[in-house]
């Protein structure tokens, strides 16, 4: 196997060799059988104790969700006002599902003596976020904040502050703040806050992008490509920078190269259309344009094969390859 190339057989062999010590053993099987026997009442339509516990938990959770905000509002309404705490708080919130962040006023905690209150815990968490996470990816404004108080942790009474991305991309950042001192005790790994954990096509957020801009990402307007990629793909696609070709230049370079290539020119005809996408430098590879060239604009449903031109973002000779319709339409 060459190091930078891999086939299915290579991967299969590599994983089987590397994980030869990982197998589904007798203990696993026993646990499964115990598990299914424990769940048999459910199969016969009888309520199992586990099911009842879940139902009860659901009811309690629902009650908390419905009642807690109302109770909080009633109790604290007189002492709450919006406070801008994060850099960029003056910038508009993302149109997505950003929730209004409202922090309790800096009133001293009723039960103490200098102990941190929720607002201070949130401020400490936001400061921790600013210090440890890459804020060039997402700013604090792009997270919702939940705070919960825990009394009996290993660190004593603490506030758990959880920041979750408003984009439904799995990004989250959790900070544990000491209740007595208001100091940050620990936080989750910074990359969990900024590297999208999953891409859920069924998410309403994601679907709304495709509904608005169409099924082919390369044909989206540039700003939409970049923003979508930032939110859901770890910013694989970005806008050109100084010293790099513009998208128009990349498109022209791709079409020019295609004209000089007999097969490509024959495929694209007299009025080709080019769709450039700029992928940033990642994992050691340099930034590059991938330009999809078609004989006609996509969207009419009659698209055929396309020519894909790849070239360094800073400029260079495009390399061309023909992509059958089933491949390019499946690659977006």
């Amino acid at each position, binding site marked *: 196997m060459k190091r930078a190339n*891999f086939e299915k057989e290579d991967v299969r062999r*590599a994983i089987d060799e590397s994980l030869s010590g990982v197998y589904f053993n007798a203990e696993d099987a026993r646990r499964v059988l115990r*598990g299914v026997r424990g769940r048999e009442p459910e199969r016969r339509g009888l309520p199992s104790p586990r099911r009842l516990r879940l139902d009860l938990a659901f009811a309690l959770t629902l009650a908390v969700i419905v009642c807690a905000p109302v109770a909080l509002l009633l109790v604290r309404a007189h002492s709450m006002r919006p406070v801008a705490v994060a850099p960029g708080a003056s910038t508009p919130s993302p149109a997505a599902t950003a929730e209004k962040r409202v922090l309790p006023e800096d009133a001293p905690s009723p039960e103490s003596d200098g102990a941190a209150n929720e607002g201070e815990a949130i401020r400490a968490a936001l400061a921790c976020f600013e210090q440890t996470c890459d804020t060039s990816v997402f700013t604090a404004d792009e997270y919702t904040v939940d705070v919960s108080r825990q009394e009996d942790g290993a660190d004593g009474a603490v506030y758990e502050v959880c920041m979750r991305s408003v984009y439904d991309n799995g990004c989250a950042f959790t900070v544990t703040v000491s209740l007595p001192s208001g100091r940050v005790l620990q936080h989750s790994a910074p990359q969990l806050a900024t590297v999208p*954990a999953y891409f859920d096509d069924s998410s309403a957020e994601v679907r709304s992008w495709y509904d608005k801009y169409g099924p082919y990402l390369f044909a989206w307007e540039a700003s939409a490509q970049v923003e979508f990629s930032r939110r859901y793909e770890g910013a694989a696609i970005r806008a050109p920078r100084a010293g790099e070709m513009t998208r128009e230049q990349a498109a022209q370079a791709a079409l020019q190269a295609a004209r000089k290539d007999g097969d490509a020119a024959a495929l694209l005809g007299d009025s080709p259309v080019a769709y450039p996408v700029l992928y940033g430098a990642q994992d*050691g590879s340099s930034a590059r344009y991938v330009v999809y060239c078609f004989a006609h604009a996509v969207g009419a449903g009659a698209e055929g094969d396309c020519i894909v031109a790849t070239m360094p973002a800073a400029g260079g000779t495009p390399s061309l390859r023909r992509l059958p319709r089933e*491949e390019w339409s499946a690659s*977006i």
Partner: protein
Amino acid sequence: MITEDARERELTRLMQTYGDGVKRVCCLTLREMSAAEDAAQETFIKAYEHIDPLVRGEIANERAWLMRIAVNACRDMLRTSWMRHIDRRQSIEALPLAAPSGHEDSLALTQAILTLPVKHRELVLLHYYQGFNLKSCAQILGISAPTATRRLQQAQRKLRAALEERG
């Protein structure tokens, strides 16, 4: 009428046939052994809960069916971890990867796969390790075929880059 014995026989057959593959996919997806054990066991428990169509021969591709359950079990596990605010993922080096002499390439490739984001790792495992075609991968992952193809291309680029970086 399907008896409990018949269901358990079918479950046992599934575990014997696919157990190792399911557990390894879970292990590489979650990058954490105890979570992988839980996810693999949960996979077969869930399979048992919906095993009647399989016993009746109504499921055409039992491997894809089972792998979809495994993928969902892993996703549930990841989401549960998030909800608990605990980062259970271990470093790659902490995984119980065997390192038999003469298999450096295998280890490098596996390590490179582990560095991929979850969405890419899932796809690489299904396509390259489990051998599913892209259409099946898309169905298993609950995504469209175009997205699967695009995601696989991204994964390939990242994997090549990771392998090149490792020299």
